């Protein structure tokens, strides 16, 4: 089974199981003044969710068994992605070495997420405008903007948009 899908199935089963235990602690119909209690709906939804997740696991196992029996994949092939029932994407999930993303970009999205989190925390301590200026400059750099003009202009646009458009013109509350 493709690893990302296996991980997804495991996470959903654990989460649905956990919330199912929480749901069973909610008052039932006989414990509340209304005819139908707050437990029924989440119980129905989680039951279908669990059933669908198990069905997905079975479906993938069956599809994979069928496809490996019919068209054996080369040993070095990466796991194929499931596109729909009965069809597997034979294109590799990743890319070949020739067009693999540059090393710097492999972690870039996680670094960007780190920057967003740092900005969100920093705005409570050093103020929204200061934090936004620093965040904008750092993000432009991270995403490959190396020209000083690009750095300065984007930071200026970010600050202008926040202070003039959002705050002054639209009167939108800022964090």
């Amino acid at each position, binding site marked *: 089974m493709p690893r990302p*899908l296996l991980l*997804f199935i495991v996470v959903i089963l654990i989460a649905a199981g956990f*919330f199912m235990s929480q749901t069973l602690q909610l*008052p039932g*119909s006989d414990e*509340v003044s*209304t*005819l*139908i*209690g*707050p437990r*029924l*709906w*989440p119980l129905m*939804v*989680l039951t*279908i*969710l669990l059933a*669908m997740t198990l*069905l*997905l696991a079975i*479906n993938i196992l069956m599809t994979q068994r069928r496809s490996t029996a019919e068209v054996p994949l080369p040993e070095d092939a990466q796991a194929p*992605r*499931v*596109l*729909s*029932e*009965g069809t597997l994407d034979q294109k590799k*999930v990743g890319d070949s070495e020739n067009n693999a*993303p540059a090393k710097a*970009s492999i972690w*870039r*999205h996680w*670094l*960007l*997420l780190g920057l*967003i*989190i740092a900005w*969100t925390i920093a705005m*409570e301590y050093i103020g929204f405008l200061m934090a*936004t200026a620093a*965040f*904008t400059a750092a*993000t*432009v750099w991270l*995403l*490959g*903007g190396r020209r000083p003009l*690009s750095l300065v*202009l*984007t930071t200026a646009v*970010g600050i202008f*948009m*926040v202070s003039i458009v*959002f705050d002054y013109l*639209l009167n*939108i*509350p*800022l*964090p």
Partner: protein
Amino acid sequence: MLENLMHGLAVVLQPMNFLILASAVFIGFIGGALPGISGVILVVILLPVTYGMEPTSAFMLLTAIYASTVFSGLITSILYRAPGTPEAVMTAFDGYPMTQKGEAGKALGIGILSSAIGGTVGTIALIVFTPMLASIALQFSSPEFFALAVLGLTVVASLGGSVILGLIGAMIGLFIASIGIDPMTGTMRFTFDNLGLASGINLIPIIVGLFAISEVLKRAGDNESHKPLKKFRVQIFDSAIMRKIRMTLTRSSIMGVVIGILPGIGASTAAMVSYSEAVRWSKNPEQFGKGAAEGVAAPESANNAAAMGALVPLFALGIPGSGTTAIILGAFIMHGLQPGPTFMVANGELIYAVFVGLLIVNLMVLAFAKPFIAILSRLLNVPYAALGPIIIICCVVGTYSVQNSMFDVWLMLGFGVAGYLLEKINFPLVAIILGVVLGPIAESELRRSLAMTQGDPSIFFTRPISATLLAIAFVVVMLTLVKPLWKYYRSRQSITNY
């Protein structure tokens, strides 16, 4: 009626009123194009500004902003897969692949034309059929609304990709919608004593996170997408495209009007349902999700028609048909007006001025969209290194401003990471949105229906409308589940025969 419309036109053409209308369209264009700033936010922001205005001018302004934001949400949805408004989520499904194929101008042209046609059809329906359609909607009771929500959920079967993943997504969405205080009993569900979760999870952090933040994260790790947008020319009138999408436009506009009239369903659902119908009626359903012209035309005509349709119950019954019309209802009450059955008689001048104003807004969309997009696309054509942080700032500020909540910002980031990871397995993210949108309607109407019969579920099958809607939903899901098995059986048969 014609006399009233002429009188309304005279009111709209007064220089001050016309200026207000044009300004409203421009504000709506900008607001709708910024991801995370919805029509609701803009109407709420401008509500205090209307206090000092004449009621007619005030409601022309608010309804024009409402109509133009529904349109302009398509711009960033098509160019950056960052829907400017929730109504434009489905537009990204085919609009963005068209942009990736270098057909941004074509996609925008289809979107503009479809929006203007859908909006005009919706406004004409609003004017002509208000009393009749309102009486039909009045016949709907809880079982019919529940059945309609179930039918809406079956859209996941038409989204392309794995149906099971789509159903899982819808269930995740339905579960997310159940978080918070149960409105019927006051019981806290899955809040873990966190006050931020007590009122439930707002739709904005989910949409912005799943679609906009996940896209920025994806682009950050992808060298290919750092190329700026190719130059494009917006083509609004193209006879070949018109021939291709005319049936989709007709069907989706009518569906949009009907769905918009039903209270609480809204333009986002109209876009989703019309998209699924476009797939169902298409001779080439496999092209959807890869840049089909009908995939842009269907949601755009339906959401604009539905936005106008949502005004029908507001004016005729005093019941809002969507989130934004609920705010507009509040604005009416703040101005000392109470929409309802007698409202049209007592305030004919206001109502007809609003109707004519909305017709003119749709013409303005056609006339001004092209120059507006030309200006906006210059801004959007800057390198992603510069655009990425600006989009993130818009997302964070837009999400925060809905409830002044940093908790919502953290939720949005969480959904952003989830969306990024889910896309690795080709997960249909829109199914989650569908569940979140339809969850509250489905649950409350199910419970009300069961309460009507002391817990007997046969009520859904003994009432003709709900039984028909549920039967259609069942057939749709079964057909989609059985189709691959049938294909597999046929292929085995042909191998055996060979």
